[in-house]
Each structure stands twice: as structure tokens, then as C-alpha cells.
């Protein structure tokens, strides 16, 4: 699996197809995050923006290989593991992106709640922000896995489904990402930053299920 992940990561890096989503994420942050603003609010925004970006990264990774090259790899390690490697590579890239964004946002933001009423220690804020970013990366990867090949194969269906899925995952009540983000936003109002452990567990389960379903389906759909 390490060799597969290394191959997929190298493919993603060298193809330079990671640039558009990363630039989009940087633009999101540039618009929504200002230095010296309440830290938890900014972390919530950074986490929410990570979700659609992750879904896009998944789309890049699962469509990055020409079908014949995909078949060569799948013959060696099996189609399930080959597809799982695509999904995990995208997830790892998104986690890396989310972690660095969380660190940057924490460092440039003010350690206060909304209206500068309560002091929020930066470490405490980061401890709440990192799992929230992780929840959003996981859920974005789940949306990407279920809205792209092998589940939806035509671009005309996959792209709208990815966008819609990512939007719903951020705003729909009951979604772990929505819970984690709104936890940060309300925490910014009260000054108490809760670590979103329950949403994290739920997101991990959902994503594991989505990855398993998508990988299982690879050998069963037409190429």
C-alpha cells in the first residue's frame, strides 16, 4: 500500500492538477480570514472551506490516471486497493492542506471571542480547530468518493453531484462537518472552544464506509 500511495502522490504532485483547488482554498482564506479577528470564527471558516476543496482533490486523484494505466496497477495490486490508494492520497493531501491552514489561521488571529469579551488561548483554539478541519477533510473525501468514478462516471453528473454534496455536507443539520463548524462558530461567541470528538468519530465512520463502497464498486462497474 505504501508503494501505491507513493505512486499516487507522485502522480498528483507531478500532474500539477492539485494547483487549482489549492489556489481556490487560498482564495477562500484570503477573502474570509483577516489577521487580528477572533480565532475560533476564522478556524470555523477555514474548516468549512476545506470540504469542497477536498472533494475536488478526490475527483482529481480518481480521474488522474488514464484507464489503461489504471488497469496495469489494478492487475498487480487488485482494483480495490488501487482505488483505495487514490482516495487515501487525496485525503492525506487535504489533511496536510487543512493542518497548515489551521496553523496559519491560528497564528495570525486574535486569541479572543467575538466582541473581544473573553480570552481564548491559541493552543486551546488550535486543539478545537484541528479536529474540525479533519472532520471537514474526511467528509469532503466521502463526498468525493461517492460522487465520482466508479459511482458516477460521466463528468456531467459527477461535477454537479460533487458540488451539491459538498454544499449539503457543510450546511445540512446532522452532518458532522456542520456540527464541527457550528461548534467553532458558537464557541467564538461564548469563548469556550469544544473539541468536536463526536463529529470526528462520525466523520471517520462515514468516510470509511464511503471509501469501502466506492472501492468495492470499482471492479463491478464497466471500465
Amino acid at each position, binding site marked *: 500500500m505504501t*508503494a*501505491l500511495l*507513493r*505512486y499516487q502522490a*507522485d*502522480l498528483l504532485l*507531478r*500532474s*500539477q492538477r492539485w494547483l487549482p483547488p489549492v489556489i481556490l482554498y487560498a482564495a477562500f482564506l484570503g477573502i474570509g480570514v483577516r489577521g487580528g479577528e477572533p480565532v475560533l470564527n476564522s478556524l470555523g471558516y477555514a474548516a468549512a472551506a476545506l470540504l469542497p476543496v477536498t472533494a475536488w482533490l478526490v475527483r482529481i486523484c480518481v480521474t488522474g*490516471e*488514464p*484507464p*489503461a*494505466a489504471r*488497469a*496495469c*496497477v*489494478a*492487475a*498487480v*495490486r*487488485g*482494483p480495490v486497493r488501487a482505488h483505495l490508494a487514490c482516495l487515501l492520497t487525496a485525503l492525506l493531501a487535504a489533511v496536510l492542506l487543512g493542518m497548515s491552514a489551521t496553523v496559519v489561521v491560528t497564528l495570525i488571529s486574535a486569541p479572543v471571542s467575538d466582541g473581544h469579551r473573553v480570552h481564548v488561548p491559541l493552543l486551546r483554539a488550535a486543539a478545537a480547530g484541528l479536529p474540525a478541519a479533519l472532520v471537514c477533510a474526511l467528509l469532503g473525501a466521502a463526498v468525493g468518493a461517492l460522487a465520482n468514478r466508479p459511482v458516477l462516471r460521466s463528468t456531467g453528473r459527477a461535477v454537479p453531484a460533487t458540488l451539491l454534496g459538498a454544499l449539503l455536507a457543510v450546511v445540512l443539520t446532522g452532518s458532522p462537518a456542520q456540527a464541527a463548524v457550528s461548534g467553532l462558530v458558537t464557541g467564538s461567541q461564548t469563548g469556550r472552544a469544544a473539541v468536536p470528538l463526536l463529529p470526528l468519530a462520525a466523520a471517520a465512520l462515514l468516510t470509511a464506509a464511503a471509501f469501502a463502497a466506492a472501492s468495492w464498486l470499482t*471492479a*463491478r*462497474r*464497466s*471500465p
Partner: protein
Amino acid sequence: MTPPPEPCPPPRDEPRAPCLRLADVGRRYGIRGPWVLRGVDLTVAPGTLTRIEGANGTGKSTLLRLLARLDAPTEGCVTGRPRTAYVPERFPSALPFTALGYLTHLGMIDGLSRGPAARLAATWLERFGAGAYAATPMARLSKGSSQKVAVAQALLGDPELLVLDEAWTGLDTAARAELERAVAERTAAGGAVVFVDHDPGRLAGVPAARYAVTGGGLERRTGGVSPPAGPVTRVTVRGPADGRLPAGAARLAVSVEETAHGCHLLGVPAARSDVLLRALLTARPPWHVVRVEPAGAPPPDPGSRP
């Protein structure tokens, strides 16, 4: 959704355990699509060559994808999980690697570490006459050169099952001959090779099981061995007392004649004589090669034989 596969019957006793077995396998694309293949039974044993024939669009590629376990069958079951390598008929060069970089990655996926993978990749590129393109980006390779990369990626892992979907298409003459030699080496080393090729002369003279895909089913063709195309090299060998020919060598030879106690005169297609000699010299205990007569030489004088 596909019903869960039924447990497969235990394999029957056979002289060689099959490395892959298709039992009553069917495949269709989509839930209500027409059946591309149905009721296919096929056993692939180690060290054998299997030729799949059929007109365009009959489902040969679908069958090969099932054999390489790229696709799961819609019905029936596939048993056996040999280490497999697959060569597609058209290999796209739209990959952001150099030829050597791509092959090194594939070698590492095969389980090698980086150094040996890179060395093996360079060796295989050299064998197919593409050594000069090792550092060339894949996007700039010609069709034939990228096909050489596709063939090299399949061979560098020493697969137990090699699946070739018209792998010869686009290769130059030297590379075609090299691929035939590589296939002979694989089968001599106990690997199974399944191939589709529209050239009836491809790998002629090598004992192969022939199957034809017709009307969505698979038929065994008889008259498996076509006469050897091209020149035949005669090799005289002496083995250990009451020694039997190594299996790899016996498969390669088109004629075997025991001339004296322990002495054999083997006829082998010239393209595979190297592989035959290697099989004999690396056998345990090794065989003594008395004489190699190139194709076209007059038959040996019986009196001069040792």
C-alpha cells in the same frame, strides 16, 4: 446490485494446481445490459500458454479483464489469486513521469525497493530497445515506445500470470521478437501467459491451449500446436543418468528424440533456443549441452554423435 458470489466448488485434483480458474463466469455491463460473456469455464495452469481468439468486439478484452481480475464477474466465480500483470492494447502516455520513473514506481508496487526497481526497469527498457528513452517524459514517447513501457511494466515483476491484450501491436520487429522471447522465458519459469493477438503466426510452434470467444461463450479449439514458423535450432544435450528433461525445457522443444542413454536431440524454434539453453543449464542437476546446431545446418552425422 450483484448477489453475493456463491462459494466455489473445491478444485479437482490435477497434475498442476491451476493458478486461476473461471467457473461458469458471465459478465455484462450495467444492470440490464446484454451479456458480453456467459457460461465461460477456463482453467489457467502454471507454465502454460493460452491463446484467445475471436473477431473484434466479441468479448476477448472483457475475458482478459476478468482473468487479470480487473473486473469481477457478474455471475459465476473466479478462484485463484496469482501475482498478475496486464498489458493493455493501447497504453496512453498521458502520465507525468519519465519512462524510467514510471517503471520504477510500478516495480515498487510489485514489491521491490527503489534501487532494484530502477535497475530492473532500465534492464527491461534496454531489452526492448528503449533504453535511450529512459529519461524521456512519457508524454513525448511515440506510440511504439509507450507500448514498450507497457510491456516492460508487466514483465519486471516476474508475474505468475501475464495477460497480454494485443501487446504486440505497435512494437517494432526487434521488440516483437523480444516479447516472444520474454513470453517463452515466463512460461519456462513456471508462469502462465494468456494472450490475444490477431496475427496467427504469433508464438506459433509453442504448445498453447487455444480458445475462441464466439457468441458470448468460450470454445476450446483443438489442434493446439501449429507447426513451428521459422527456423528450428537443434540442440544435443546429455543429462544425468535416467534423467528426465526439465519441464521448462520439454515445453519449449518442438521435437524431442532420445538418441542414446541420457542423450537427447531437441528441436526448438530459433527464437526460443536461448531460453531452452538457460532452462537446461540452470536445472538441478544441470544438463550438459553437447552441441548446438543453428537452423539450416545439415543434419548431424550419426557416427560423430558422442
